[in-house]
């Protein structure tokens, strides 16, 4: 069996990849079906499939990185040469397949057969370029595997940005330019993937594997690895001293000792990642200001992100002098504390939008007037609903972090649909029902934590 065949096997032997294929087939079916049944042809429809070849490039790159990052990869005979062949063996047929819709591009064949052939070649080359962009991202991004989770959003964001229409225009109107650009890029790519130094740099590199998303311990290892790297540059002795003193000051029977002890790693993690938290909060608030209908959806991202950083002391293997009762109380106190913190952050942002609404002028984008509107104060309740839900999911699917996202997806889809579609009218929340939902979610979350802390194994393999 050749090295190439062995490398190709991982594209059908791994169930994670099969899941991704399922998703791609689903999205492709939608794109093709829309093209078939929508009589009003919109610009960019023929380049719709191009969006899909980008994730394919990313996928090929990260799966090859899994091999290249192994310490033994430099010793694999003939593997260097195989990489380029593998990249092409996958990319070329898919690029041919995805350029086929251009055969039916309206009015093209009637111009001249030569121009028709040139445009087809141009479509093929454009596919190849987008595929290579995916490859470059996969090979150069530090943790490209995590990026896979964001790839489905391309199916929504790319059509919204109109990039497919631009590409379609380039393919049809400037095929020579596309062909020339492809020739240069493929040449550069061929040279890039042939240098021994390129392989040596990747050999033994720390790399998150696709399968890791199923394994809690791997996820924890990656999380701590990256946190440690960031933390090395951003160490803050003041936090250490504060918590050392605070934890040490209280007696072993004092619950505050355990709550503070549990908060210490959280604060360190936050101190390391505060810029990201602030950036995403600002982004969410700005989005919510300009598009109030999706405000609950985007605001929910903030507590979700905070909850993702926090590790509850419920199942810590580090056996410090805290029993099951202390684990429960510290975990509960932490979630409540986070809820309050998230409310304060969002509350401050919401309060800020009021004066800003009268100061910031309207913006015109493509003839649409964007007006900054103050966010409703009821939005401060969003973290109170999201935090217990997210923690409930994390606690229940503790061993398989990939299920956190899958379990939260229907909830977010529901929130998104109810805020952007007529479905929202059917599920209008009164303040009383909102409070009731929040109370039920907190009750469920705390009851689950209590049950696990008091009546379940604290370590599970």
């Amino acid at each position: 069996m050749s090295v190439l065949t062995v490398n190709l096997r991982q594209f059908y032997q791994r169930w994670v990849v099969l899941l991704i294929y399922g998703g791609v087939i689903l999205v492709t079916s939608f794109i093709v079906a829309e093209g078939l049944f929508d009589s009003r042809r919109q610009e960019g429809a023929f380049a719709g499939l191009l969006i899909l070849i980008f994730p394919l490039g990313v996928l090929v790159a990260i799966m090859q990185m899994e091999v290249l990052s192994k310490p033994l990869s430099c010793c694999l005979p003939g593997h260097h040469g195989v990489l380029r062949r593998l990249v092409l063996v996958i990319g070329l047929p898919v690029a041919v397949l995805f350029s086929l819709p251009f055969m039916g591009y309206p009015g093209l064949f009637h111009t001249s057969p030569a121009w028709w052939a040139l445009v087809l070649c141009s479509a093929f080359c454009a596919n190849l370029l987008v595929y290579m962009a995916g490859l470059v991202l996969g090979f150069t991004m530090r943790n490209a595997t995590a990026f896979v989770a964001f790839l489905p959003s391309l199916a929504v964001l790319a059509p919204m940005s109109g990039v497919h229409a631009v590409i379609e225009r380039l393919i049809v109107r400037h095929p020579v330019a596309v062909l020339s650009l492809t020739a240069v890029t493929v040449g550069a790519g061929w040279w890039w993937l042939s240098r021994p130094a390129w392989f040596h740099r990747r050999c033994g590199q720390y790399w998150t594997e696709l399968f890791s998303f199923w394994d809690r311990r791997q996820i924890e290892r990656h999380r701590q690895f990256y946190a440690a790297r960031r933390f090395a540059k951003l160490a803050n002795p003041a936090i250490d001293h504060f918590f050392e003193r605070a934890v040490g000051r209280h007696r072993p029977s004092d619950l505050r000792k355990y709550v503070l002890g549990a908060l210490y790693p959280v604060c360190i993690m936050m101190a390391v990642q505060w810029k990201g938290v602030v950036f995403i909060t600002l982004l969410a608030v700005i989005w919510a200001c300009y598009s109030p209908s999706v405000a609950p959806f985007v605001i929910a991202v903030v507590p979700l992100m905070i909850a993702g950083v926090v590790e509850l002391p419920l199942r810590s293997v580090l056996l410090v002098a805290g029993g099951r009762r202390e684990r429960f109380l510290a975990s509960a106190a932490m979630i409540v504390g986070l809820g309050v913190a998230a409310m304060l952050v969002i509350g401050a942002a919401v309060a800020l939008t009021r004066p800003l609404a009268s100061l910031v002028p309207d913006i015109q984008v493509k003839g649409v007037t964007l007006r900054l509107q103050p966010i409703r104060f009821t939005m401060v309740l969003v973290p109170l609903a999201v935090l217990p839900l997210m923690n409930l999911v994390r606690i229940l699917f503790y061993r398989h972090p990939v299920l956190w996202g899958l379990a939260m997806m229907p909830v977010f889809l529901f929130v998104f649909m109810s805020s952007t579609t007529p479905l929202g009218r059917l599920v209008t929340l009164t303040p009383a029902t909102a409070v009731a939902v929040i109370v039920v979610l907190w009750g469920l979350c705390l009851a689950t934590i209590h049950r696990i802390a008091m009546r379940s194994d604290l370590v599970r393999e």
Partner: protein
Amino acid sequence: MSEISPIIELNEVSKAFGRTQALDGVELAVQPGRIIGLLGANGAGKSTLLRAIVGLYLPDSGRVTTVGCNARDLGPQELARIGYVHQEGELLNWMTVGQLIRYVAAYYPNWNEDLERRYVADFDVNRSARVGSLSPGERQKVAILIAIGFEPDLLILDEPASALDPIARARFLDLLLELIQTEGHTIIISSHILSDVEKVIDHVIIMDRGRIVRDGSFDDLREDYARVRLTALHGPLPATLPFAGVLDCRRNEAEAVLTLRRQSPQAIEDQARAIDCKADIQPLPLEDLYRLVAGEK
């Protein structure tokens, strides 16, 4: 005189993970002051037993009592008496070693800073290194330090020395011997490096498929088996050797090495004399003893 109550007591403890029976009706009583070697093949249930003792696992049935308290209800007071080095060595990787030590020390009012300083010096622990960047052996050193720093009454070591280099292992054993000299410390060591374990233990527990197949003093185990080197004094060895309980026999014309079960040294010497041979009786190393017990079961 009042009887000393066991520091660990397991009554009919069973624990299953799916179809795998990790613990199967385990009965155990550990008296304080014992140094126990917990032996068994991979998957025998050693780690499950240790985790049940520290309360991380709840048994499906039966009761685990540790330091006089139901393991399920171990609180700060009881846990301040238990040190635990776990197999996975999961630590807070993003902290420096110094930070981690201070963080753990803050939980224990009886943290011994002198012991900590000596340990850090003896084991060449780098306080400023990031835990995540440590080699497995260095991580183990840190895990051991945070488990012994508060001088626990009960120290549970699950594969504590598997990643240590020979010098660090020797120092670790010295440290254990030092701890043992302080009366009242109970130590349970689960390890596959039996040559190390046998230097410190006085009691052996052997597990097989979730059951305890041997629970007794190390001396008793050693007395149960013996290795005898027989040398013929005049002429060749007789074709049949008159020893009972022979488990293994390797011989040539003039010499034989026998592994015997339950034979007193006096009886062996008498029988050797009867066939005009010299008997050199040697105790078996723990590794061979374990293999014999496990093989019999």
